[in-house]
C-alpha cells in the first residue's frame, strides 16, 4: 500500500447503504407473525395506583395480551444499577432503580403502568384508551430546590428525604486559598441541559425461538453486550441463549445506553410468553418522557484569586436533579464536579454535590454528561474575574493553564471511571493561541468591534476553554479474521450510532494487513459476533476498541508473515504484505493471497505444530489504565438584535486536540455535530415542567432543535498531542463539540449588549431570546 489509510479523510463505507435506504434500523426488522406493543404511561407525576381494569381493553378485537406489574412475576423487580458509585470516601448514595411496570405508585409522568400487545400498533394504541386506572394523585416534588428540602413530598417514601446522593471531593485546602486571596468572587449558576432527541426514537424487537431455546433481540442500544447480560439474568437464561443486535442506530448521544429501560425487558419477556415476535417502537411524544433526560443543576460557586488573576482555589456546592430514579449512579454529577477544573492549575478545590430525587423522568448522561455544567461554572467565574481584575479574557485563562511539561497532572479527585482524575497530556496555550489567531481576536477587539459599535451594531466575542476526560475503560475487544475469500472481517462488541466506525475501524486495521478498507467488513453491535465489551459512550469507542483493533491487526499480520515464511522457506524480513498478498520482496511472482494463506492456516490433513492456532485470526482486548484527556477552545462572534434579542452567529471557530486522528473528516463531523447540539442547549433547548411535574413542551414543535438556520458554518483547527495512555495515541472526540458552548454564548451575549456595564450578568443556561430580553430589561443602567 503506497498510501496509508490511517489518518486519511476517506469517505465512509456505510454511506451507500444509508443513502439508499438499505441500512437496517430496528423498526425495519419485519418478522412473520410479529405482534406490536404499546405502553400505558402514568399521566401523573406522583400517584397511587388503586386499581387497573383491563377488561374492556382485552375484549377489543386484535388485543392479544395486557400486562400490569402483578402479571409479570419475578421479572417485575427494580432494574440493575448500570454504574455503581465510585469509591469516594464518605459518599452517600441511595440506589433506587425502576421496575419495568410501576406496581403500587408512579413517580414521574410517563412511568410505564401497563403493557399492551396486539396484532397491530394501531389496535394496541386503541386498547390503551380502554384501560381504566383508578388513580390517587399525591403531592409532587418537581422543582429541584424545593425537592431538596427536608419537608418536600418524598419520591421514595422509605428514605428520610429526597437526597439521592451527597459527595464531597477535596483537593488541597480551600481555606488556605481564601486566606491568601486578593479577590474572592461568589456567584450562583443554574445550568439546564435538555434531552438528546435522536431523530430515531428507541425501539425493541424480540423473537423467542422455542426450538433452539434462544432469544434474539434487536435494540436501539449503545451497549448490546450489557443488554445481553442483563436480559439473560432477568429472564433466567444463560448469556449464550440471548443474542442482542444493535443494527444501524439513528443517533444515540447517551440516553440509548440507560440499561435497563422497561421496554427492553417487557418486549423480550412478552415474546417468550406469547411465542410470537413482539415489536415496540417509541413514538416522539413518548420519547420526551420515556427516554432519559439530562436537565439541571444549581451551583453556588466561589473562586479565590491572586491580584495577578491566578486561581488559588475554587469552592462549589451544587444540587443535581436526578429524576425519580438513579440507575446511572453518580456519573453525571461526578463529571460536573471533575470537569469544572478545566485546563487550569487549581491548587485548592472543595466540591460537594447533592443529587436530588424529583418526580420527573430519569436523568442519565447525554453528550457531555454533566461536563457542560462544570465548564459553565469555571468559565463564567473566570470571565467575571477577568472583568473585576481588568485582565483580558484570553489572558486570564492563559495565566492559569497547566503547562505542557506538567503532565501527568494529578487532580486528586476520583473520576467517573473510578480512577484518580489525572490529565495525560495537553498543550493548552498552543490551542488558545491558534484560536485567537483564527478568529482574529486582537483585531476584533481593537478595530472591528469599535467600528461596528459606532454603526450601532451589537456585536460581541466570546472564547472558552475546556478539557474532557475521554476514552475510559474498562476495556473493549476486537476480532480480526482473514476469510478464505481474502476479505477481512473485523468484529467488535460496541454499537455504532453514526460515528463512522465501519470506516475508521477499517482504517486502523488496513495498513497492518496491506489491504484496502473496502476489503474489510466491520461488524459491530451483534453479541453473537463478539461476546465481550462495554459500549459506545464517554467518547471511548475509537480509543478503546480502536487500540484493540490495532493489536489484533498486528497479530494477524504477524501470523500471515510467519506462515508465508514457512511456506516460502524464507525469512519473515524478506516478505512484504501489500495489495492483499504476501510476496517475497523483489520477487512478485512468489506470492500468496491472504485468503490462500488463511486456507493454508486451516489444513484438513497433516499434523500441525503444537500451540498453533487455526486460521489467520486474532482476538485482542485493550483497557486503558485511565481515560485520556482531550481539550479544546471555542470562540465566536455574534450579533444580537437588541429589539428581539435574537442572536446571529457571525463566526464560530473551534480548535481542538483529540490526539492522533484516524479520519479527519469524521472527527470534524463529530465536532461540528457536537457544537450544533451545544448551540441548541445554550440557546433554546429546555424541558419545561410545571409545578405538578408535567412536561409542557413534549413535541418537536415546542421543544425546538437547532435547524439549518441556527447552526453556522464552523471553522476548525487542530492541535495533535498524542495520548501516552494508548499505543495509537488517540483521545476521544464524540462529546467535545457540545461541552463548552453555554459559557461561550453567555460571554458573547454579555459582550455584545455590554450587559456588565448595566449590572447584568448571564449566569444561567439556556439563554433564549426571551430570557435574555427579561434579564437585560432588569438592567440598572
Amino acid at each position, binding site marked *: 500500500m503506497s498510501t496509508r489509510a490511517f489518518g486519511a479523510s476517506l469517505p465512509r463505507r456505510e454511506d451507500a447503504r444509508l*443513502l439508499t435506504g438499505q441500512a437496517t434500523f430496528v*423498526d425495519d426488522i419485519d418478522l412473520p407473525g410479529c405482534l406490536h406493543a404499546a405502553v400505558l404511561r402514568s399521566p401523573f407525576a406522583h400517584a397511587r395506583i388503586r386499581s387497573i381494569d383491563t377488561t374492556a381493553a382485552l375484549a377489543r378485537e386484535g388485543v392479544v395480551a395486557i400486562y400490569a406489574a402483578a402479571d409479570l412475576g419475578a421479572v417485575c423487580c427494580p432494574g440493575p444499577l448500570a454504574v455503581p458509585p465510585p469509591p469516594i470516601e464518605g459518599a452517600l448514595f441511595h440506589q433506587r432503580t425502576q421496575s419495568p411496570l410501576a406496581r403500587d405508585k408512579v413517580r414521574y409522568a410517563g412511568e410505564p403502568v401497563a403493557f399492551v400487545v396486539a396484532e397491530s400498533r394501531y389496535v394496541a394504541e386503541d386498547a390503551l384508551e380502554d384501560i381504566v386506572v383508578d388513580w390517587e394523585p399525591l403531592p409532587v416534588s418537581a422543582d429541584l430546590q424545593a425537592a431538596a428540602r427536608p419537608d418536600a413530598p418524598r419520591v421514595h417514601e422509605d428514605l428520610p428525604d429526597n437526597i439521592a446522593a451527597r459527595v464531597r471531593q477535596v483537593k488541597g485546602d480551600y481555606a488556605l486559598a481564601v486566606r491568601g486571596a486578593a479577590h474572592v468572587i461568589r456567584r450562583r449558576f443554574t445550568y439546564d441541559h435538555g434531552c438528546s432527541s435522536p431523530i430515531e426514537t428507541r425501539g425493541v424487537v424480540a423473537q423467542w425461538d422455542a426450538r433452539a431455546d434462544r432469544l434474539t433481540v434487536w435494540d436501539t442500544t449503545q451497549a448490546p453486550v450489557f443488554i445481553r447480560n442483563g436480559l439473560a439474568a432477568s429472564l433466567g437464561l444463560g448469556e449464550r441463549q440471548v443474542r442482542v443486535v444493535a443494527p444501524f442506530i439513528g443517533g444515540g448521544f447517551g440516553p440509548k445506553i440507560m440499561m435497563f429501560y422497561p421496554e427492553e425487558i417487557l418486549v423480550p419477556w412478552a415474546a417468550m410468553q406469547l411465542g410470537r415476535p413482539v415489536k415496540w417502537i417509541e413514538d416522539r411524544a413518548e420519547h420526551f418522557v420515556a427516554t432519559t433526560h439530562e436537565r439541571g443543576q444549581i451551583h453556588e460557586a466561589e473562586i479565590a484569586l491572586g491580584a495577578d488573576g491566578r486561581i488559588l482555589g475554587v469552592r462549589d456546592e451544587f444540587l443535581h436533579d436526578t429524576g425519580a430514579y438513579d440507575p446511572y449512579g453518580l456519573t453525571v454529577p461526578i463529571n460536573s464536579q471533575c470537569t469544572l477544573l478545566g485546563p487550569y492549575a487549581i491548587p485548592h478545590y472543595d466540591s460537594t454535590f447533592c443529587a436530588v430525587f424529583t418526580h420527573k423522568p430519569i436523568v442519565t448522561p447525554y453528550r457531555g454528561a454533566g461536563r457542560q455544567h462544570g465548564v459553565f461554572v469555571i468559565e463564567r467565574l473566570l470571565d467575571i474575574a477577568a472583568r473585576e481584575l481588568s485582565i483580558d479574557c484570553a489572558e486570564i485563562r492563559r495565566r492559569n493553564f497547566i503547562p505542557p511539561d506538567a503532565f501527568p497532572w494529578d487532580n486528586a479527585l476520583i473520576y467517573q471511571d473510578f480512577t484518580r482524575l489525572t490529565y495525560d497530556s495537553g498543550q493548552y496555550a498552543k490551542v488558545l493561541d491558534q484560536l485567537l489567531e483564527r478568529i482574529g481576536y486582537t483585531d476584533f477587539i481593537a478595530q472591528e468591534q469599535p467600528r461596528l459599535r459606532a454603526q450601532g451594531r451589537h456585536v460581541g466575542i466570546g472564547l472558552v476553554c475546556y478539557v474532557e476526560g475521554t476514552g475510559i475503560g474498562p476495556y473493549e475487544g476486537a476480532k480480526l479474521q482473514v476469510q478464505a475469500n481474502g476479505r477481512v472481517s473485523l468484529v467488535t462488541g460496541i454499537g455504532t450510532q453514526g460515528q463512522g466506525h465501519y470506516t475508521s475501524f477499517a482504517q486502523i486495521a488496513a495498513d497492518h494487513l496491506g489491504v484496502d478498507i473496502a476489503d474489510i467488513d466491520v461488524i459491530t453491535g451483534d453479541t453473537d459476533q463478539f461476546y465481550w465489551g462495554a459500549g459506545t459512550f464517554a467518547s471511548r469507542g475509537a480509543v478503546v476498541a480502536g487500540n484493540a483493533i490495532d493489536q489484533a491487526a498486528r497479530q494477524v499480520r504477524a501470523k500471515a508473515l510467519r506462515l508465508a515464511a514457512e511456506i516460502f522457506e524464507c525469512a519473515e524480513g524478506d516478505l512484504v504484505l501489500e495489495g492483499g498478498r504476501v510476496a517475497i520482496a523483489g520477487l512478485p511472482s512468489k506470492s500468496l493471497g491472504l485468503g490462500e494463506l488463511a486456507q493454508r492456516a486451516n489444513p484438513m490433513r497433516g499434523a500441525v505444530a503444537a500451540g498453533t492456532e487455526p486460521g489467520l485470526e486474532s482476538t485482542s482486548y485493550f483497557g486503558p489504565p485511565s481515560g485520556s484527556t482531550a481539550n479544546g477552545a471555542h470562540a465566536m462572534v455574534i450579533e444580537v438584535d437588541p429589539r428581539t434579542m435574537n442572536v446571529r452567529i457571525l463566526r464560530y471557530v473551534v480548535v481542538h486536540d483529540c490526539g492522533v486522528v484516524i479520519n479527519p473528516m469524521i472527527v470534524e463531523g463529530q465536532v461540528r455535530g457536537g457544537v450544533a447540539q451545544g448551540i441548541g442547549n445554550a440557546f433554546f433547548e429546555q424541558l419545561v415542567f410545571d409545578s405538578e411535574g408535567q412536561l409542557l413542551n413534549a413535541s418537536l414543535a415546542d421543544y425546538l432543535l437547532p*435547524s439549518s438556520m441556527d447552526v453556522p458554518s464552523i471553522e476548525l483547527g487542530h492541535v495533535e498531542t498524542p495520548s501516552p495512555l494508548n499505543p495509537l495515541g488517540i483521545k476521544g472526540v464524540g462529546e467535545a463539540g457540545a461541552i463548552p458552548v453555554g459559557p461561550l454564548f453567555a460571554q458573547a451575549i454579555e459582550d455584545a449588549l455590554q450587559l456588565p456595564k448595566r449590572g447584568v450578568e448571564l449566569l444561567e443556561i439556556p439563554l433564549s431570546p426571551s430570557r435574555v430580553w427579561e434579564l437585560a430589561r432588569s438592567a440598572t443602567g
Partner: protein
Amino acid sequence: MAERQYPIRLTVNGTEREAQVEARLLLSDFIRHRLGLTGTHVGCEHGVCGACTILHDGVPARACLLFAVQTHGHSIETVESLGTPEHLHPLQEAFRACHGLQCGYCTPGILMTMKAFLEQHPDPDEAAIRKALSGNLCRCTGYQNIVAAVARAAAVAREGA
C-alpha cells in the same frame, strides 16, 4: 369489529400499486410496513422533523401527515427511487463525498426534499440551501456538510448539463 378497508391505486417509484387499507393508516406506515420500502424513516409523527419526507406528485410531503388513502390516484416517490448502493444518484454521491450524514436516519427525507429543491433551483447559494433545508432536522451533522453536499450536487448537475 375489523376496520373497514378501502381500495387504493397509486404509483410508487414509477410502478402501479394497489392495496386495501384502513382509512386511518398513515402513509408513512403504508410505505414502510405494507410496501416494505423502509428507507422512508419516521422521526416524530407530527410533521416537524422531516425524516419521512417523500415526493407526492413530485412535491415534498411528510408521509406521517398523510393517510395512505389520500394517495389514491396519485404518485409518490421515496428514497428507493434514487440510486442503489452500487450506483448512487449524484445527490447521494455528493452526500457521501461531503460527509453529509452521520447516523443517516434523517438522510432519506433530506435527499427527497433536496431533490425537489434542486430541480426548482439549479444554482442555489448557501442561504437558499439553508432555507430549503430548514424543515428537515438533523441531530448529528450540524448541517454544514449537508449544505456543502447540496451545493456540490448542484454544481455537478450544472457541469453535466
